[in-house]
């Protein structure tokens, strides 16, 4: 049993032993709780705060959690590109000085050993490292694909690693291609690219592999400027799209049967208007912490917009085993990640 559900069930049992009026005033009311439906949260803006003289951040781009419950924050401050926290927000480790464009961070368990994949949009490379920063492998511009004229036109933002070790790289700030390698680093396929057709991308910012509901794995890829999630086969064929109007989604993160996404902007893309998205197993938006109530009319989601100024530019969501969320932000005054504790 997960800790959250254990606490929930034991709390109900405890309340049953005492008189209700006695404890009524200790209940949490709706004020200060963000989100909708079954996905509501308390906000802790100070969760990850550190002394910036010693552990500075610029943009806080992405976070992942390893199997020991340690949280890895990626920032493009080269004094410490990676900050490692425990779930209480205490700093455990800091490393990395060679990633000026540190942007995407993916964790992959390879036969019991976990590795990080750092997408650096300044170095125009993806770097595979150990959890303490030792470089294992580097993926550069796929010039052999003949889609690129120069290394600098490849500006990777995210990776997804399949169970067989295949690596998918999203060139979200570059030519918008998804590059597919095998575990040896050999190029297998390249698809997507810029254009106006549905299989094209405008800001292919994030990518993940969806294995929910016992279905064969597929790729979920964000088209951020198009406010869409696009589902592709592992061979790169478009299957379907998920419209999230007003949500400028960064990368999909799958936890249990849900998809979590940070929307860096909302509505018309104005600055400082971000919020968080939680999709259910049917890919319907069911909660939007910081945003308006998601409403579907005739199967179409209404335009999403920010209602509370909690976030400026949320860039990623990391989900722990209790379904609490950790939210790093881009261009938000060099602030540290915010924690949303599920209630």
């Amino acid at each position: 049993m997960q800790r959250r559900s254990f606490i929930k069930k034991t709390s109900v049992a405890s309340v049953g032993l005492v008189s209700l009026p006695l404890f009524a005033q200790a209940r949490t009311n709706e004020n200060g709780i963000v989100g909708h439906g079954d996905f509501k949260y308390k906000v802790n803006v100070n969760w990850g705060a550190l002394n910036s003289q010693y552990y500075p951040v610029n943009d806080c781009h992405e976070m992942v959690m390893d199997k020991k419950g340690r949280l890895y924050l990626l920032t493009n401050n080269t004094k410490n590109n990676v900050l490692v926290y425990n779930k209480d927000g205490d700093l455990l480790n800091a490393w990395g000085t060679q990633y000026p464009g540190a942007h995407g961070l993916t964790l992959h368990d390879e036969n019991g050993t976990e590795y990080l994949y750092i997408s650096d949009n300044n170095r125009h490379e993806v770097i595979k490292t150990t959890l303490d920063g030792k470089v294992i492998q580097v993926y550069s511009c796929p010039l052999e694909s003949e889609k690129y004229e120069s290394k600098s036109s490849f500006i990777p933002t995210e990776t997804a690693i399949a169970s067989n070790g295949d690596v998918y790289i999203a060139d979200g700030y570059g030519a918008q291609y998804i590059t597919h390698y095998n575990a040896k680093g050999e190029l297998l396929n390249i698809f997507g690219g810029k254009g106006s057709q549905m299989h094209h991308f405008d800001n292919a910012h994030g990518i993940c592999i969806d294995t929910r509901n016992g279905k064969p794995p597929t790729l979920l890829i964000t088209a951020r400027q198009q406010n869409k999630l696009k589902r592709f086969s592992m061979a790169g064929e478009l299957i379907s799209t998920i419209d999230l109007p007003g949500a400028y989604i960064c990368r999909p993160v799958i936890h249990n049967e849900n998809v979590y996404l940070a929307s860096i902007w909302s509505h018309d893309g104005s600055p400082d208007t971000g919020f968080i998205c939680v999709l259910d197993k049917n890919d319907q938006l069911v909660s939007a912490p910081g945003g308006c109530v998601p409403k579907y009319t005739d199967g179409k989601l209404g335009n999403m917009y920010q209602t509370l100024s909690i976030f400026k530019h949320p860039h990623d969501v990391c989900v722990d085993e209790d379904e609490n969320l950790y939210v790093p932000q881009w261009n938000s005054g060099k602030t540290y990640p915010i924690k949303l504790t599920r209630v």
Partner: protein
Amino acid sequence: MKYVLRWIYFKGILIIVLVGYTSGAFGQENNQQSTFALAAPVVYVDSLLFTKQALLSFTEGEKGSVLHYQLADDKPRTANHKKPIEIKTTSTLKVWSTHPYYQTSDTTTLKLTKANSLLSDAKISIEPEPKAAYRGNKEASLKDLIKGTTNFRTGNDWLGFQTTEVNFTINLKEPTTLYLVSLGVLRDYGSWVFLPKQITVESNKKIIGQVNIQIPKEGEKTASTFLHVPIKKGTYKELQIQINTLPTIPQWHLGQGTIPWLFIDELLIN
């Protein structure tokens, strides 16, 4: 953790207990006001530039919030997200939200401009060309009477430049009496987009109007707005507009020392 004394009767016996409880979200009492503010209200408007009337509507916002609006010299009024507002004259509209628990939102300010179509038949040359990623519909974007939003990344409303000087030459179809030139511009410091430093209007190589824009300050909000240049009232057929940017982004900004972006979406003459 806080503590209070409470009592209950159990089978006729008074029992006094010490009850401990934690405060609500954000480390505050639930009945106090939050440290968080409501987001600035989202206002839909068919066009910030209009020839007859503009229709404004509002989103619902956070549950329990109340929408307010104020037209320039009028008193503040309560808005209803189900009832659009009609505007028929050039107006400045302020909209904000209040809530019993959250802080009052920032104010959304909209400048709605009743425009004419004096430029519809004019030829406008642009020097230099806008940057490749932000060319909009070139000359047509400047006279389409569609005001761009602060989201300059999509659509064809905005022309984006990264140079210290931009020149527009306007050739009107017929000589026209004019007294004002207006330039639709964007301010978005987070995206390194700054207002120009100076706008000069010439006709027949004589300066007929000039404005200097105040030095940008840290924290100024993103806005799609107009800069107005009063010109010597007269009849003109050709106008040259010279737009000078800041030579470099100011010291307080992350991009200090580099040339700022300049975004222009509309030219108006009156």
